[in-house]
């Protein structure tokens, strides 16, 4: 099958949607399909062979956070050319309500179109105001996928209709088989706890973790906190006493293999996010790597952790609750092993082999009874006349 995938976010920056698109594309190519991914990138940025660069991405604030997006006449032209040359059987657009390539592609295309909705935090006011602009484009999507129950609810709330839930995928075996790294492996005296996420984005929860730190260190003095992520952590770390600050080790950004090794080595992975999470892919990665998970009880996390059966939950944004649960976990290796054991079996349903099959079932369903992906004469004409 010839499949065109559109990613709205630039590949230069790490992000859940980008990883999802990359892994899905590689899995489909591995299964023998022809895949082309259209994504923002400069012409001189090195990208994988299956990625078509659609122009430079500009950092823009949208929906409450800064994202690197591509728009404007040059990109619109490239989208049309890509659609024309691709002769796709199915067009798969990620995050269709982002003002980037996704919306441009949706506007310019007709035929079997699949849309995947990743976010669960669309701003209601913006969505309400943008309805007249978005609706006619949204109507062209023949199959809507949401990555979680939360994302589905958000979508249905704003646009009505329905969507099927297909979760984000993970290469479970890559995490399960990653080698342990002695630098990050805990000992009974010096257990290790991992945090993964941007340091300067408060909703990722670093401030909650640092607020819980004194209580944890009082009970387990040797605990090491390994922090993986980009950004400036000063705001969250400056308030700590020097003795507490010394327990935090900033690892910066790590590549995929190092991240897998980290999650494979630590005694506990903690996810103190305070909101805006639609799925929780890192939780699934940690479960694959066999790391016991301690997470805030956000809806998305509760669902991934089966209400606490596959990991431990604490009240969202509550450092005291985090500290209590973390100290209890660190003191109970048997419970950690049991929960991680259950999680590593349950996590199989997020493996790409199963997830990609579900996505492909959606492709086959929309293809049946429909033509190929083509160019929308009305939108194409308008774009051509007014933008290029």
């Amino acid at each position: 099958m010839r499949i065109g995938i559109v990613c709205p976010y630039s590949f230069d920056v790490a992000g859940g949607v980008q990883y999802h698109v990359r892994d899905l594309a590689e899995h489909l190519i591995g299964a023998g399909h022809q895949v082309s991914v259209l994504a923002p990138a400069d012409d001189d940025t090195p990208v994988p062979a299956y990625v078509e660069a659609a122009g430079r991405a500009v950092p823009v604030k949208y929906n409450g956070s800064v994202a690197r997006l591509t728009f404007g006449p040059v990109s619109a032209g490239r989208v049309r050319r890509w659609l024309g040359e691709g002769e796709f059987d199915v067009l798969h657009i990620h995050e269709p309500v982002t003002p980037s390539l996704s919306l441009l592609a949706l506007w310019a295309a007709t035929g079997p179109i699949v849309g995947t909705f990743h976010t669960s935090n669309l701003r209601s006011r913006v969505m309400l105001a943008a309805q007249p602009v978005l609706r006619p484009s949204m109507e062209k999507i023949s199959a809507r996928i949401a990555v979680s129950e939360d994302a589905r609810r958000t979508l249905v709330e704003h646009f009505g209709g329905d969507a099927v839930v297909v979760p984000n995928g993970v290469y479970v075996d890559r995490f399960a088989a990653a080698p342990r790294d002695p630098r990050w492996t805990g000992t009974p005296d010096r257990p290790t706890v991992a945090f993964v996420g941007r340091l300067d984005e408060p909703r990722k929860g670093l401030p909650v973790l640092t607020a819980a730190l004194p209580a944890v260190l009082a009970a387990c003095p040797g605990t090491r906190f390994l922090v993986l992520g980009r950004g400036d952590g000063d705001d969250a770390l400056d308030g700590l006493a020097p003795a507490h600050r010394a327990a935090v080790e900033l690892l910066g950004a790590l590549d995929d293999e190092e991240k897998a090794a980290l999650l494979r080595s630590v005694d506990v992975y903690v996810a103190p996010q305070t909101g805006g999470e639609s799925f929780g892919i890192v939780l699934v990665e940690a479960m694959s790597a066999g790391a016991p998970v301690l997470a805030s009880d956000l809806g998305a996390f509760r669902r991934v952790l089966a209400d606490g059966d596959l990991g431990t939950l604490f009240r969202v944004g509550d450092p005291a609750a985090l500290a209590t649960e973390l100290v209890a976990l660190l003191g109970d290796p048997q419970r950690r092993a049991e929960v991680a054991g259950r999680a590593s079996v349950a996590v199989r349903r997020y493996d790409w082999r199963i997830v990609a099959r579900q996505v492909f079932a959606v492709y086959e369903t929309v293809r049946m009874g429909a033509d190929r992906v083509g160019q929308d004469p009305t939108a194409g004409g308008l774009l051509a006349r007014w933008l290029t």
Partner: protein
Amino acid sequence: MAGRAAPGRAVVSGAFGRIGEAVVGWIGDRVGEVSGWVPLIVALVLVLGWYLSYSAGRLDRLHHRVESTRAALDGQLARRAAAALEVAHVLDPATALLLTDAATEALTAGEEEPAAVPTLEQVENDLTRALQAAFDDADDVRALRGDPLATESLDLLTQACIRVQLARRFHNDAVATAQRVRRKRVVRWFRLAGHAEWPLMVEMDDTPPTGLIDLVA
């Protein structure tokens, strides 16, 4: 209603407005007495005309989506019935007869004339229930899969059941969207839907048999 403008609509109306003014200006020069409101009316008529054709195109696309998703659903339902017939060969005679009966009913329902929606829903519901009865237990299914021939037809049936569910959801999503647009005032007042039938959702039980699904997850 400026806030309800679609992308491009403002640009287009502006451009048409300019053309309209130019045309009217030319006529005005010739005739000599054109009041100030004529350009405005011409512009409004042009915008209305553009909006009507735009809405008609949008509705047409939605009708097309309703039809193609319906065709996909019919196709998947036929595949499911065929897979159920195939699978009956590896079952005990009683279950086989039950399944064959339900699957044949489903396959022949639309033969004489296109099946009316209620009948279609009824026969497909019957097939769903027959499948549910035959494969409600994951252990039984696991035992059946010992035979390679059975494995193949069971896989086909499982895939078909999942796709029926997907196809119906996508179809009903298209129907809901089409219904919403058809309720719009501009569509009703100007009868943009023509003689197209009011789209109806397909309401049926499409739950795949528990015994088959357990093995997939």
